[in-house]
């Protein structure tokens, strides 16, 4: 097991280095430097030369890259071009907890709805429950976030008035443990629609996968043995079948995290949530390249760590993987 973990971690470092390299090259390749936005006056050439010397922009590229790596290890992501008085770190520190809440809630919703739905459908194979659930699942995976978000707002918030439309994350800035918000009713009110918008497609995917894998597991011999031994059906399913059936679900958690990340861009934009995704989209439109690069770096880091964790968990759960 340790050998597998060390092997995976050894892949981890070149990937991180590659991500940092791509980010650095992209940052340098973008037209528009830090000294373009000085208002209406252009800066005289000698002042530009001095500023470049101060910010080490006249060093050779490899030296600049080394400085960039050192900055990254210190955790400094640079100033923002658009918000002149804030650094990228400030912006991320304020908006990342909100995005994290949204992502975690959506994932929880997807798991809580998806796994029982898939299990139910598999156990009642070829009945109307199965067909209905499969149909709903396919429709669920086909409705994109950009369609489901406005539809939920229109149908539930505007027409029925059950939940508020927007402004999550704008009422409080105190988080316990760095990202857990105060659990008031107002928070949950605001949290329902965005989590549904993001989590529905995910829960449909999880439900389809759970159903497919459980259908295969239930035909295995050890399930037949368990039933022959006289165990209750619930024990057979939950203790024996589900544990093995959920392993394929673990393997799609990697792409699922990526889907959550891209989903937060859309959902935060639609619901007006003050999260990292919305700042990312805004900074693209404002040509605020340090924020774009910093956000990309943080997302890449998150996804790579998540993939690593998923791989290790998968190897822990399914020992056959370790010996490949």
């Amino acid at each position, binding site marked *: 097991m340790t050998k597998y973990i060390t092997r995976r971690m050894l892949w981890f470092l070149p990937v991180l280095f590659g991500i940092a390299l791509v980010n650095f090259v992209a940052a340098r390749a*973008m037209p528009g430097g830090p000294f373009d936005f000085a208002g209406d006056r252009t800066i005289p050439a000698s002042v530009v030369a001095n500023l470049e010397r101060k910010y080490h922009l006249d060093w050779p590229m490899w030296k600049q890259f080394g400085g960039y790596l050192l900055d990254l290890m210190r955790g400094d992501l640079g100033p923002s071009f658009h918000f002149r008085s804030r650094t990228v770190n400030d912006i991320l520190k304020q908006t990342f907890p909100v995005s994290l809440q949204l992502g975690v809630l959506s994932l929880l919703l997807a798991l809580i709805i998806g796994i029982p739905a898939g299990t139910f459908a598999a156990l009642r194979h070829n009945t109307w429950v199965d067909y209905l659930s499969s149909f709903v699942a396919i429709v669920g995976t086909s409705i994109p976030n950009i369609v489901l978000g406005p539809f939920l707002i*229109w149908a539930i918030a505007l027409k029925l008035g059950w939940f508020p439309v927007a402004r999550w994350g704008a009422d409080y800035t105190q988080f316990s443990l760095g990202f857990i918000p105060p659990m008031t009713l107002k928070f949950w009110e605001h949290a329902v629609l965005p989590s549904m918008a993001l989590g529905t497609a995910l829960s449909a995917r999880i439900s389809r996968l759970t159903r*497919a894998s459980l259908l295969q597991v239930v035909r295995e011999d050890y399930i037949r043995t368990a039933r022959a031994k006289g165990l209750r059906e619930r024990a057979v399913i939950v203790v024996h079948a589900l544990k093995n059936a959920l392993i394929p679900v673990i393997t799609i958690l990697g792409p699922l995290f*990526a889907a959550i990340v891209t989903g937060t861009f859309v959902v935060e934009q639609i619901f007006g949530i003050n999260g990292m995704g919305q700042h990312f989209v805004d900074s693209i439109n404002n040509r605020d390249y340090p924020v774009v690069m910093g956000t990309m770096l943080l997302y*890449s880091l998150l996804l790579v760590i998540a993939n690593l964790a998923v791989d290790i968990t998968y190897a822990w759960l399914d020992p056959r993987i370790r010996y490949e």
Partner: protein
Amino acid sequence: MAVKTTTPQELARLRAAEAPRRGRSPLADAFRQLTKNRLAVASGIFIIILILVAVFADTMVISFFTGEEARPLLAPYGYAEVNFRYHDLGLFTRTEDGKLFLLGVDYLGRDMLSRTLYGTRISLAVAFVAASVSLFIGLVYGLASGYFGGRVDNVMMRFVDFLYGFPLIVFVILMQVYFKAISRRGATGLAGTLINLNQSMGGMFFLFIALGALNWLGMARITRGQVLSYREKEFVEAARMVGAGDVRIIFRHLLPNILGPCIVAETLQIPGYIFLEAFLSFIGLGVNPPTPSWGLMISEAYQALRSYPHEVFVPAVALTLTTLAFNFLGDGLRDAFDPRLRGTT
């Protein structure tokens, strides 16, 4: 006792019974299986209609009956004709000067029906071009890696594993940001011609490159797996014994057998491409306005959701129906080609 003589009719019947049955190719079998799946057939017909709409969206028709000037049959008012006199009209409105807008008008006075119909071009083009590019790259890579084996296979698959660790969606976004940034400034030479090509295509050229570069990894792995399983079969060995070279074996023997599952796998990816294009257009990194991508239409209109919901829901319904159709068709294809998986989704 009389000898039993066979009449000519009985003789003909005996001969017909002994004649070898005409075999059905696996392709015909799969097609027959596919036609039994009504959802897949309906989706296939819907997609064919979409393709026809995309191709014939601006076909002119001279109408003898109404005496008006020649107008396109399907999209009567074009997708970029801005008109400030009437804006944000609802469904089925007829204006004072006699124009009938079947699906209403958006905030700039552009006809929603025309924009939605032209939007099929964007979505279908992205779907097919991105799928073809990804299929091509994946096939070539997987064939080379799987057939040659050994060190070559090892190195190539390690490269794929390395790329698997990257969050490629992040790189697609970075690539699109970069392309948008350099398109704003003029550029000369090769970059300039590429940028002009991109602008003339409404911003789709760079999008194709970005999407095609994203998804070939899975296709390479599938292809390699198929090649590995077919490489040891007897007919390949027989071909080699007869003297067939590597290229002939790959193209004449291996490729026809693995192409089926690979195409099915790629068709299952198409809804992902459509969704990715809509997502990128929604956040402003896709096609350039006024090219009517459905994602772009939704992002322009969702702020008017309370007052004019049809501006959001017309492209939303179109997008959902297209994705649904490709999903059902892909599922039907997969069930038709691999009967063991039937019933288990």
